């Protein structure tokens, strides 16, 4: 009745949420990993009801057939193209120069922002509401004082998630204070509260609409799918243009980024509701509204909470990036520390973000777990005691006048960290005997991998690139995904950024290759040795939540300026998700299959290559997809360390307020993301026999 084929991911992420400490870890990426997994589930569940049983055999035959067909068509098109179209990059006659209209738009907005009714009566109010709400939350947090906030967090965590998480929360907040980051942490928290509330509200409403109406679902799904793969940076410039630098722009960019997972999970929950229960409610004469409120929404509680959890993680992932447009708070501290090349200070501001992410993630995940369990036997009494305790701590704090974190209680981690980083870069940069220094590796990687790859791609005639994209997407997905991929690639040409886009593409491909190589190896190792798995987990958690700005400087210090450090940053960012998905996939392989292989006398190696890996194929494919999407998400960060191409253009657009350059680069990154996602999305293909898809 419900889920049909569901590959490993959706279920495994669910169980992962219960086991792993920071379950979804990356603000940005795990969010993508979990939600896109659920998206996979959504797509497999909705249409084709009957076909799955008939699946494998017919499907495989058709696939073989398809492959040959696609090959023949591609060869034909190649010959035709060579005769008709010739070689070279994207023809200028097919490109549209948008700089004129975009510059005019930007000028118009700046000139009319203070006087046009659209701003005075609508956008201005939006901006003011945001400021008023953030301010209100901020003042409340300040009024509670550090003791009050810490106590409240601890008690709240205790109520929803038990003693251990309560202690973790208290420790996390205390650490924020110890690092001397209390006020920035509160600023970020205030912004986060408002942004998450708005995301949950907006996402919930959209999800409700999509969950209840098939038409809305059809309209919204591709939009949400697309937003899922957009790098956070792509959202910044348009909001800045309308609202100007500052908190309103930051909050709105965060909302746009964090609402989609909420929307898609709400829709998923509603559409997945047990039909039997709904049917029963209907037969009891419940109206549509009653059915929704008493049956479908309660049944979707788990998805709703997962949605909230994802929204929070996405919002935190945006916290640092939004500092580029004036969000203030912790992100701004990280960003300012960058200016004085101070890794230690950046880390001191980055750690509270990681801690906030860990606490919020675990608490919301625990709340989600609780829901399935029988109603907790905690009474109103406990709640009252908790509230009273918090109040007592607040009053106590006020009495001793200790609202702000005591100045003496801080710990300076900046200096030791800087010393460690200096030592590392001094000793690894070059001249290491035998293996050579990191700078030498970077040089070789640039000269022998990145350079030839870029030149090769740029040398290819433009239509062969489109053809290759189309053929690949068709092999892995459906004609629909192929069409999207080809159109996205063509749009890049039309925007007039063909060459830089291919430059970026070459970097993405190289980084993905490295990520997969290391990620698969580590993932398999972690799956086979539980000790290594346990040791890796916290490391992965930290790398996934750590704001990318923090490792910009170490990366340059190790690899010099250029495309190599950009690729390195991307690998660091994408690796955790790939390792995690791989390990999960390999671990989830049916033990019976392994057992039978073993009883047939297969060696460990044979078990791995002939049983575990083939059976984990869906997970591995998902890992590839996630790797690609995540690597692309760091392209803009790569622009900050000399990656050039589209990433640099996007940063340039933001820095110079140059809409023409920035928006076009942003749009091209989005198109690249769409193309890469469609080309690598394995779960999308519904059975070829049904529905004509």
């Amino acid at each position, binding site marked *: 009745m419900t889920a049909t084929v569901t590959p490993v991911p959706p279920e495994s992420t669910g169980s992962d949420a219960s086991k792993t400490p920071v379950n979804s870890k990356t603000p940005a990426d795990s969010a993508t990993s979990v939600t896109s997994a659920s998206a996979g589930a959504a797509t497999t569940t909705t249409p084709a009801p009957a076909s799955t049983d008939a699946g494998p055999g017919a499907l495989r035959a058709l696939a073989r057939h398809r492959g040959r067909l696609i090959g023949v068509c591609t060869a034909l098109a190649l010959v035709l193209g060579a005769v008709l179209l010739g070689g070279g990059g994207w023809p200028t006659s097919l490109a549209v120069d948008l700089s004129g209209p975009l510059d005019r738009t930007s000028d118009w907005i*700046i*000139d009319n*922002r*203070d006087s046009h009714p659209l*701003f*005075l*009566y609508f956008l201005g109010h939006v*901006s*003011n*509401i945001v*400021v*008023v709400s*953030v*301010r209100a939350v*901020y003042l409340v947090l*300040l009024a509670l004082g550090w003791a009050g906030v810490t106590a409240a967090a601890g008690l709240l965590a205790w109520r929803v998630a038990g003693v251990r998480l309560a202690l973790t929360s208290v420790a996390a907040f205390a650490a924020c204070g110890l690092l001397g980051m209390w006020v920035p942490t509160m*600023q970020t928290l205030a912004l986060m509260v408002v942004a998450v509330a708005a995301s949950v509200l907006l996402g919930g409403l959209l999800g409700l609409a999509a969950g209840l109406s098939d038409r809305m679902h059809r309209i919204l799904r591709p939009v949400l799918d697309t937003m899922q793969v957009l790098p956070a940076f792509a959202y910044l410039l348009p909001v*800045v243009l309308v609202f*100007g*630098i*500052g*908190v309103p722009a930051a909050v709105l960019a965060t909302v746009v980024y964090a609402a989609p997972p909420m929307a898609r999970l709400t829709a998923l929950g509603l559409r997945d509701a047990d039909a039997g229960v709904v049917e029963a409610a209907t037969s009891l004469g419940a109206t549509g509204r009653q059915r929704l409120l008493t049956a479908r929404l309660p049944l979707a509680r788990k998805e709703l909470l997962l949605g909230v959890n994802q929204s929070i993680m996405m919002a935190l992932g945006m916290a640092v990036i939004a*500092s580029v447009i*004036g969000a*203030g708070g912790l992100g*701004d501290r990280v*960003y*300012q520390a*960058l*200016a*004085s*090349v*101070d890794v230690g*200070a950046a880390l001191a501001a980055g750690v509270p973000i990681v801690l906030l992410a860990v606490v919020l993630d675990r608490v919301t995940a625990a709340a989600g777990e609780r829901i399935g369990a029988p109603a907790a036997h905690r009474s109103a009494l406990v709640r009252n005691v908790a509230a009273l305790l918090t109040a007592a701590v607040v009053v106590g704090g006020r009495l001793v006048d200790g609202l702000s974190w005591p100045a003496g209680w801080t710990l300076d981690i900046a200096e030791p960290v800087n010393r460690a980083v200096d030592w590392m*870069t001094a000793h690894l*940069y070059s001249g290491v005997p035998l293996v050579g220094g990191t*700078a030498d590796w*970077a040089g*070789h990687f*640039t*000269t022998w991998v990145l350079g030839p790859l870029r030149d090769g791609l740029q040398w290819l005639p433009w239509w062969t690139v489109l053809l290759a994209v189309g053929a690949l997407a068709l092999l892995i997905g459906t004609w629909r995904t192929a069409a999207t991929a080809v159109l996205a690639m063509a749009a890049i040409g039309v925007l007039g950024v063909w060459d830089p886009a291919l430059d970026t593409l070459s970097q993405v491909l190289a980084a993905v290759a490295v990520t997969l190589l290391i990620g698969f190896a580590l993932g398999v190792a972690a799956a086979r040795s539980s000790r290594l798995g346990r040791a890796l987990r916290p490391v992965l958690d930290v790398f996934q939540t750590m704001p990318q700005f923090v490792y*910009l*400087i170490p990366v*340059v*210090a190790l690899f*010099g*300026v*250029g495309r190599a450090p950009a690729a390195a940053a991307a690998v660091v960012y994408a690796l955790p998700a790939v390792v995690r998905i791989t390990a999960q996939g390999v671990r989830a392989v049916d033990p019976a299959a392994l057992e039978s292989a073993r009883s047939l006398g297969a060696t460990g190696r044979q078990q791995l290559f002939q049983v575990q890996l083939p059976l984990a194929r869906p997970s591995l494919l998902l890992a590839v997809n996630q790797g690609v999407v995540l690597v692309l998400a760091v392209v803009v960060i790569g*622009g900050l*360390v*000399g*990656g*050039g191409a589209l*990433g640099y253009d996007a*940063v*340039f657009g*933001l*820095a*110079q*307020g140059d809409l023409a350059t920035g928006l076009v680069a942003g749009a091209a990154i989005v198109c690249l993301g769409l193309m890469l996602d469609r080309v690598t999305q394995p779960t999308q293909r519904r059975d070829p026999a049904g529905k004509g898809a």
Partner: protein
Amino acid sequence: MARTTRSAALAAAAALALTAITGCGAADMTRQASPYADAKGSRTVTLSVQSWVGAQANVAVAQYLLEHELGYRVDTVQIDEVPAWDALSQGRVDAILEDWGHREQEKRYIDGKGTIERGGDLGVTGHIGWFVPTYFAEEHPDVTDWKNLNKYADQFRTAESGGKGQLLDGSPSYVTNDKALVNNLDLDYQVVFAGSEAAQITQIRQFAKEKKPFLSYWYKPQWLFEKVPMTEVKLPEYKEGCDADPQKVACAYPHTPLQKFLNTRFADGGGDAAAFLKKFRWTTEMQNDVALMIADQKLSPQEAAGRWVKENETTWRSWLPS
């Protein structure tokens, strides 16, 4: 039924509350203060900090004096140069303390909208140029003339610049004509954009540690000169207007007296803080002292400012409003 009316009433109440909060009138887009300002009923000044350390030094000292001598609370926000003008116009920040010359923005916001006012000289003169490390210039004295640059191109080569010499450029927010210069002066160089100043500084320090030659876009005043001595390469002389067409530039960068700018409303109604910021004026050496404490000794900007303030009382006394 009852439920319907109740939720309708709720919705109406919410809508009403929303209108009450916002006021039904027009929103004023030129009064967009930061939500973190004025907490605890204090008077707050918001300053824009640019991403380079010299600008941090200005702001740190101004902040220290505003807080310790005049009793303000100071918020700082890091914003790139051009967006900072926009934020200043909207009242999100009250002042920019170091601007390297943005003619287009001056025309738009000062002459056109009148939302920004000039705040006078900062007292520091800025200069952009091309630099090679002094250890290299001493070995090859003729590298300091642009005409000889091509001779050294292969010594400046890196993996990133391909077959050409590498000219290292920095943050995308800085003013640069380097691509046009390389083109118009027929230089066998490739401009490599580090993408951020942090990346550029880190790379320069790595080069210097190994005494490798490099050619970089850089600017004065800058604390890095104290750590890595660099010598300027002479470009064709700057003449008024020679950089008018960005495509045809073939001359050096000008020497720019750095300027302060204030939000008009703040300049008129900002009381002591505005008066103080207008009078704030120091020298290149002073800025460098503070910048070096921040960037090299890794003092926090506030500690660095505190140290400087203790030793230079005669200078800053004259900035305080009488």
